[in-house]
């Protein structure tokens, strides 16, 4: 049985990665299991300079999911390179850095530095809904994503994955912009913009009023978008959105994802990601699948 996949030149022992912002830089989860069991780790969104993030309240639970408005709190790329990367590199797993910025220049500067680090790839975050400048502001038009992606492409030799926001009318056209600009893969979906109101206080629960919805609640939207994007582009897809077990992961792969990420699922159990690896293997055994890549995009539409 072969579970290896190749995501835009990033070789992974299995298709399971952990999504940005739900796994920190790996330390906390390494206390529960050997991180080498994962196909890859997407780091917490990392910026050129440290960011302090948004005022609390930053998270709240919703039906089968949660809202967050963390605001990309992170220690900056320099700190990451010195303190977190050496730790992550002790494990036999792909290390992909989620890169975020507030301007095209910042993305470019950051990616110049990332290009010099011992990492396997970059996931360009053009889709965080919780910060005022950058991110989703670039990510919601064809021209916007194409521009940032092509500028970053000029300075980045490593595999470039661009993470897409679902908060758009036509995600397939945005994905096309990414592909046209020379990205190696797309990842989707980031969180869906949402809001929860405390009816006693008559105010939104989150201090930022709105936040990104994640968890199983968004899975059908994510599966649909992965399918649509897979029909529109030829570059591979890293699929995510509410995956909490092997069956969910298979659904994304059938829809067209080469690899998948576990996001909010990491919060309900520290073992969700490695249980998903096992769940995929169980499915392969049950269906006599020798090679996991044989199921990618194999959904048959009605």
């Amino acid at each position, binding site marked *: 049985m072969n579970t290896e996949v190749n995501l835009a030149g990033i070789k992974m022992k299995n298709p399971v990665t952990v999504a940005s*912002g*739900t*796994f*920190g830089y790996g330390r*906390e*989860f390494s*206390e*529960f299991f050997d991180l080498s069991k994962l196909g890859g780790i997407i780091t*917490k969104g990392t910026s050129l300079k440290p960011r*302090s*993030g*948004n*005022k*609390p*309240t*930053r*998270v*709240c*639970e*919703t*039906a*089968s*999911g*949660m809202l*967050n408005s*963390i605001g990309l*709190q992170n220690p900056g790329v320099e700190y990451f390179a010195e303190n977190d990367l050496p730790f992550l590199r002790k494990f036999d797993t792909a290390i992909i850095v989620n890169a975020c910025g507030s301007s095209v220049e910042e993305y470019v500067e950051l990616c110049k530095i990332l290009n010099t680090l011992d990492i396997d790839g970059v996931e360009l975050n053009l889709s965080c809904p919780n910060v005022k400048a950058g991110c989703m502001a670039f990510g919601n038009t064809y021209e916007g994503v194409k521009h940032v992606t092509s500028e970053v492409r000029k300075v980045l030799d490593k595999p470039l994955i661009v993470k897409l926001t679902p908060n758009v009318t036509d995600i397939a056209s945005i994905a096309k912009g990414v592909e046209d600009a020379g990205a190696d893969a797309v990842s989707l979906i980031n969180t869906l913009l949402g809001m929860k109101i405390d009816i006693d206080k008559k105010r939104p*629960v989150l201090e930022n009023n709105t936040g990104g919805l994640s*968890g*199983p609640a968004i899975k059908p939207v994510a599966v649909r978008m992965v399918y649509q994007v897979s029909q529109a582009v030829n570059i591979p897809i890293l699929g995510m959105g509410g995956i*909490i077990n092997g069956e969910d992961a298979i659904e994304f792969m059938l829809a067209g994802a080469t690899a998948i990420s576990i996001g*909010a699922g*990491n*919060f*309900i*159990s*520290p*073992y969700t990601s490695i249980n998903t690896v096992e769940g995929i293997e169980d499915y392969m055994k049950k269906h006599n699948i020798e090679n996991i890549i044989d199921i990618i995009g194999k959904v048959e539409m009605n």
Partner: protein
Amino acid sequence: MPKQIFAKLIKKEEVIKDIYKFSVKAPEIVELSKPGNFIEIRVSEGIDPFLRRPISIYNLDKENGILEFIFQVKGKGTEILAQKEEGNDIDIIGPLGHGTFKYEKYNNIAIIGGGIGIFPLYELSKEAKLNNVKVSCYLGFRNKELVMLEDDFKKVVDSLIITTDDGTYKNKGFAIDYLKQDMEKSKYDCIYACGPLPMLKAIQKYANENNIDCQISLEEKMACGLGVCLGCAVKTAKSPKEAPEYWHVCKGGPVFNSKDVEI
């Protein structure tokens, strides 16, 4: 280093209306726990409710590996938890939190709690007293119906003052006022507090203004409990408003030095 375990519920007791005390067999967690640590419980195997519930540790029975926690039924999650029966397994991660109560350098401490915030103070009282620290305890409740755990606390402290806001039981008024009165003669080395935000703010102000060491246990909406989601942010006292710096209740806390955080 926290563990995830399925702990058997061996005793369930309704302390007062809608407040339950659960005793679970959790030697792996008990062994590693300190006063101030908390646990996260997955109340349902399904996806709704989705997140774990952070709950403070009430009592650690190190000898028998039994952990006790007390919670109030407040919403869907705690309602499901309250329906568990003795013999059921409960999915727990713990101990969580790196900032715990520190009492080793003190001889004479005051512990103050309000309402459902008194729960993490029991293990602290018990452990400090066992280590020959003089423990004076002040517990405040809104009214007589909400007074709880008096006998438990009485056994593990040197003195216990119970207050009710409306005077329907024992001393009328706020616990902090009784603590302040005693401070003159008792000269406590450190104050430990957990309770509603207005109470914590008042204690923090009093302790900081009078330069008294003070440790407060905080609460904030939380997802992972492990320090990765960065949801449970609390602003540091030293950072300016225009460039705030945030720590996290699950990582730096839940217990903080009162001078270090802005609440």
